[in-house]
C-alpha cells in the first residue's frame, strides 16, 4: 500500500508517502525525524509498518521543512530507510 499522509491547501501540496509493501517496520525514520512525525504500529491489515502519527497529518507541511531542506541538516528519513519506502511531495 502507498499511504499518502498530508494535505493540499492554497499554498501547495504536502504529502509524505510511505510504501508499506517495502517498509519492514525498522523504525529508523521515527528515530531520526527532528519533528518526530513517524511511529511504527500495526496497520488495519496487521502489518507492522511506519506511518505518520495521526495527530500530525494535518501539519506535516508545517513540521517538516521538506525533504531537500531537511537533508543538509541531519541524517534524514530517506537516508536511513534501507528499503527506500519514504518519499516527499515537496
Amino acid at each position, binding site marked *: 500500500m502507498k*499511504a*499518502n499522509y498530508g494535505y493540499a*491547501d*492554497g499554498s501547495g501540496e504536502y504529502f509524505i508517502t510511505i510504501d508499506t509493501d517495502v517498509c519492514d517496520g525498522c523504525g529508523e525514520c521515527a528515530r531520526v525525524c527532528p519533528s518526530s512525525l513517524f511511529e511504527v504500529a500495526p496497520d*488495519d491489515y496487521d502489518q507492522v509498518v511506519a506511518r505518520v502519527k495521526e495527530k500530525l*497529518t*494535518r501539519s506535516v507541511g508545517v513540521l517538516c521543512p521538506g525533504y531537500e531542506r531537511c537533508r543538509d541538516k541531519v541524517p534524514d528519513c530517506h537516508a536511513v530507510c534501507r528499503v527506500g519506502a519514504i518519499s516527499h511531495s515537496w
Partner: protein
Amino acid sequence: MITAGVDVGSLSGKAVVLDDNRLVSWGLVPTGPDSAETAKEAMDIALQKGNLSLDRIEFVVSTGYGRVVVPFAQRNVTEISCHAKGANYFFPGARTILDMGGQDCKAIRCDANGKVVNFAMNDKCAAGAGRSMEVMADLLQIPLDEIGPRSLQLDQGEVAVSSTCTVFAKSEVLAHVRQGAPTNDILAGLCAALASRVYGLLRRVGIEPEFVISGGIGKNVGVVTRVEQKVGLEANICFEPQIVGAVGAAIFARDTLVKQKKPAAAR
C-alpha cells in the same frame, strides 16, 4: 455470524448490522457533543430495525473520527480501510473511490478484495472539502442542494474562480457578484474548482475503473458531473452513500471474528 460496524463521523454517526454477508439494518443519527453517546444512538436504531439486542452481535468494529471512544467496539479500524471494504461490498468492481464529506476528502485505490492499495486524504483545508460549498451557499444565499443543478444551467459561461483558499475565493465571488456576473455562472466556476481539487487528490492515488463516489458530495450533481468528466469514468453511487464506511467496519468485524475462530477450531 452477526457483526456490526459503527462509523462516528464529525457530522453524523452510522451503525450497520451484518449477518454473514447480508445487510440486516442500519441507523443514522447526527453527531452530538458526546461521540460515545452518538455511537450508541446509531447502534440502537440499527438493532431496533433488525429486531436484535446488542448481546446478539458477536463482534463490533468502530471507525471514523470518534472511533476510539466507542465503548462497545472490540476493535477500531481507520476510515480509509473501511471505505475501501464498504465500496467493494456494494460494487465488487470498485478500484477507485472518492469519499467527500463536509470536513474531509479521501481518494482511495483498492484491489479486488477491497484492500487499500493507495490512499490520500485531505482534512486540513476547507477548500478541499464539502465545507467550501456550504460557505459559498451561505454567502450567495442559495440552498446547498440547488448549487449542483444550477451550476449546470449556464447563463453566459463559467466564471472562473482562481483563488484556492475559501476565504480569498469569497472576496473573489463577491467581486464577480458586484460586476453583475450571473449566479449560475459563478456556481459553475465554484463546482469546477472543487472538482479540479478533488481530481488532484485522485490523480495522486491513480485512477482505475470502476469509480465509486460516496459521502455528501455525491448529492451535488454539479461537482459529480465535473469530476466524472475529468476522471473520464462514470461514477457508481450506492443507495445510501453515507453508510459505506460503517458497512466496511462490519465486514472488518466479520473477518476479524473468522480469523479468531480458526485457530480455536483447529485445536
